[in-house]
């Protein structure tokens, strides 16, 4: 490389001046000031517009993703899950979510949250849309006025949301039957509500069931309304026969409750959460409340098989009471077994039905006295209780009350409680009586005289038989060969006739020839007649061709 010979600095070119591009920035500090102010403004604005952070506890975080899962109210997005982590006690998951500022008024302490995902339940399949859009958390805004930021999420969507019109009621039953959460409540076969929850009573003596009746059906629940389980198929065998009742198909599958107002009952409105009894079937539910019940004891002779608690007590076929229980008692004094049947009578019914029967009024003398007097007078007239077979098919028995004119006189001792009601014998005794009657009748029949006559008849019969026998022998001996001879002759005669009439017999051929001639003659006669018809003058002139 050739080194230039140390040029002086003056030989070096000078840099070329270039245009100025940037002006001087004065008052430069305004810029950061403005930026900082704007930034602060933005930050404050964001903080103000920011929502509230809430915590919801769930059992697990299935289908939930931080920064993705939204919270929706009536399908409008009101927030988003920001964080999910396991609680310290490891039993729950804490989901932190940010709710938008304008939705923070929904956060009251009875607001409920649950995860919407595809679910199959008694109510059907819900949440299918989340297969596409992803699961989300739904909210049911509560009615409380207290704000809250900590919630426990529901694991199952609530049956009734706060914005559903209607009222909640409480039913009390012996057992749950086939009901479950979501089982339907019917009114006149229309779905009027749902079972929302149930609980075993403290002490375990029954079940308390909470139902929610939708508006407008909740109006029909009054003080006179009766509820009963309409689950499945209600089949009963009683002395009335077999009864079969069903509600809807749904209630067969998932159980249901029906309600109806008791006809003729008061219909005052009731407040929400009133408790009602849940009966097990319609019959029990629809039994009118008896304001007066008198308990009696009845003793029946004979077997009580087929008589069960709940069997009706009827007067001429009309229900006036119910058998409460059937017991066994050992009467020491009489050294015998007795079978007391405890019966509830409803004297009101008797009074009500016996038009013009009683001239006593409850107002004057008090209901207890009135019914006693009534019963006493009836018993004096012969009202007795009797065990009868109600249904031959089922063998169920019932207590029938009737006026027996021939019944021995009896009185009710009211001092004993429960008082003993007089009874009459049941059917078994009747049978005994009839058998005895038949036996007596049989006794009256004059068997000896009959037997004598019978004997003589038999003898003459025997004689007749003997003579017939003789006759038969006679026939056999003499008559028979004669008859035989006659038969042989007849046979010979038949043979002659046959010969005569044989095919080639002369008689036949003669007959045949004769017939032939006859036919010829007939033909010529008919020809002649024809000719005469055509030429009637030939009678006079003769045939043509004949004249010369």
């Amino acid at each position, binding site marked *: 490389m050739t080194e230039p010979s140390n040029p002086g600095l003056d*030989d070096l070119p000078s840099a070329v001046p270039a245009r100025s591009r940037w002006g001087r920035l004065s008052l430069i500090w305004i810029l950061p000031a403005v930026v900082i102010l704007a930034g602060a403004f933005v930050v404050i604005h964001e903080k103000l517009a920011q929502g509230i952070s809430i915590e919801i506890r769930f059992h697990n975080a299935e289908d939930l993703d931080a920064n993705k899962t939204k919270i929706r109210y009536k399908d409008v997005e009101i927030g988003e899950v920001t964080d999910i982590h396991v609680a310290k006690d490891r039993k729950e998951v804490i989901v932190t979510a940010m709710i938008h500022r304008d939705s923070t008024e929904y956060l009251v302490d009875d607001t409920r949250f649950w995860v919407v995902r595809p679910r199959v339940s008694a109510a059907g399949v819900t949440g299918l849309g989340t297969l596409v*859009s992803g699961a989300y958390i739904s909210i049911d805004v509560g009615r409380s006025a207290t704000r809250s930021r900590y919630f426990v999420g529901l694991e199952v969507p609530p049956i009734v949301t706060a914005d559903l019109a209607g009222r909640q009621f409480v039913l009390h039953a012996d057992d749950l039957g086939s009901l479950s959460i979501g089982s339907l409540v019917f009114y006149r076969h229309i779905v009027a509500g749902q079972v929302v929850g149930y609980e075993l009573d403290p002490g375990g003596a029954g079940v308390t069931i909470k139902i929610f009746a939708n508006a407008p059906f909740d109006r029909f629940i009054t003080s006179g309304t009766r509820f009963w389980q309409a689950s499945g198929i209600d089949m009963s065998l009683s002395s009335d026969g077999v009864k079969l009742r069903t509600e809807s198909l749904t209630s067969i599958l998932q159980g249901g409750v029906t309600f109806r107002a008791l006809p003729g009952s008061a219909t005052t409105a009731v407040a929400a959460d009133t408790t009602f009894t849940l009966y097990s079937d319609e019959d029990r539910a629809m039994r009118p409340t008896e304001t007066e019940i008198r308990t009696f004891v009845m003793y029946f002779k004979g077997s009580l098989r087929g008589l069960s608690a709940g069997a009706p007590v009827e007067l001429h076929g009309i229900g006036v009471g119910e058998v409460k229980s059937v017991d066994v008692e050992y009467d020491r004094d009489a050294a015998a077994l007795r079978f007391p049947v405890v019966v509830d009578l409803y004297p009101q019914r008797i009074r009500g039905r016996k038009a013009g029967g009683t001239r006593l009024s409850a107002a004057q003398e008090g209901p207890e006295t009135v019914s006693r007097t009534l019963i006493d007078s009836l018993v004096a007239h012969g009202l007795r209780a009797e065990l009868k077979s109600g249904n031959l098919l089922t063998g169920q028995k019932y207590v029938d009350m009737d006026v027996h004119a021939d019944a021995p006189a009896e009185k009710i001792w009211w001092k004993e409680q429960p008082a003993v009601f007089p009874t009459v014998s049941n059917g078994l005794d009747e049978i005994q009586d009839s058998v005895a009657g038949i036996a007596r009748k049989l006794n009256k029949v004059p068997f000896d005289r009959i037997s004598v006559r019978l004997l003589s008849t038999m003898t003459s019969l025997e004689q007749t038989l003997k003579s017939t026998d003789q006759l038969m022998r006679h026939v056999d001996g003499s008559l028979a060969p004669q008859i035989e001879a006659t038969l042989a002759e007849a046979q010979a005669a038949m043979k002659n006739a046959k010969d005569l009439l044989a095919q080639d017999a002369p008689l036949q051929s003669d007959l045949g020839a004769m017939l032939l001639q006859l036919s010829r003659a007939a033909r010529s006669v008919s020809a002649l007649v024809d000719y005469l018809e055509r030429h009637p003058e030939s009678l006079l002139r003769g045939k043509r061709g004949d004249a010369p």
Partner: protein
Amino acid sequence: MSLPATGRSLGLLVCLDCRLTVRGVKLPRLQCPRCHARLHERKPHSLAITTVLLISAAVLYVPANLLPVMDTRTFFDDENDTIMSGVLVLLQSGSWPIALLVFIASIVVPLLKILALGVLLYSAWRRSPRGRLQRSQLYRMVEFIGRWSMLDIYAISLLATLVQVQTFASIIVGWGAWAFGAVVVLTLFAARTFDERLLWDAPRHD
């Protein structure tokens, strides 16, 4: 013929970090007195490293354009998009200025860079005296536009992050994006390791 006085001829060095002109000393390691950066007369092994980087970039340019950069999965179908097909989609949907922008930035620019650097490397090797000014300007343009190829990477990163609506639409990044990013980075490095002073150096006399 008097050659222009270059730093090399004067025994002077310029610090590329702080632009200080210093007197060169024949020592293996030189440090700038002001900023303490390492001083080199010319960038060490400039041509070799730049060539290697350039060849790698050229090789990766092919898969960058052939492999899909984005896989759009919707409920109904799967759409694979290369850079070119993305441009066509933009064109079809009516936004032709953006389509043009992406086309230039993602297809033209990297290709231009690779070709330009190739030309520059060749001329640096050949050291032909003609057209040096233009080549210097070419280098400066290469240096300037290099960064703009990154815009498609940024667009992809935003799209892939946002469009993650499960079962409705989700965007998965494809290997083409990786190759493309590599091409951009490699050409950026190649432009940096190339010592443009080589373009102005006098031809070697063997």
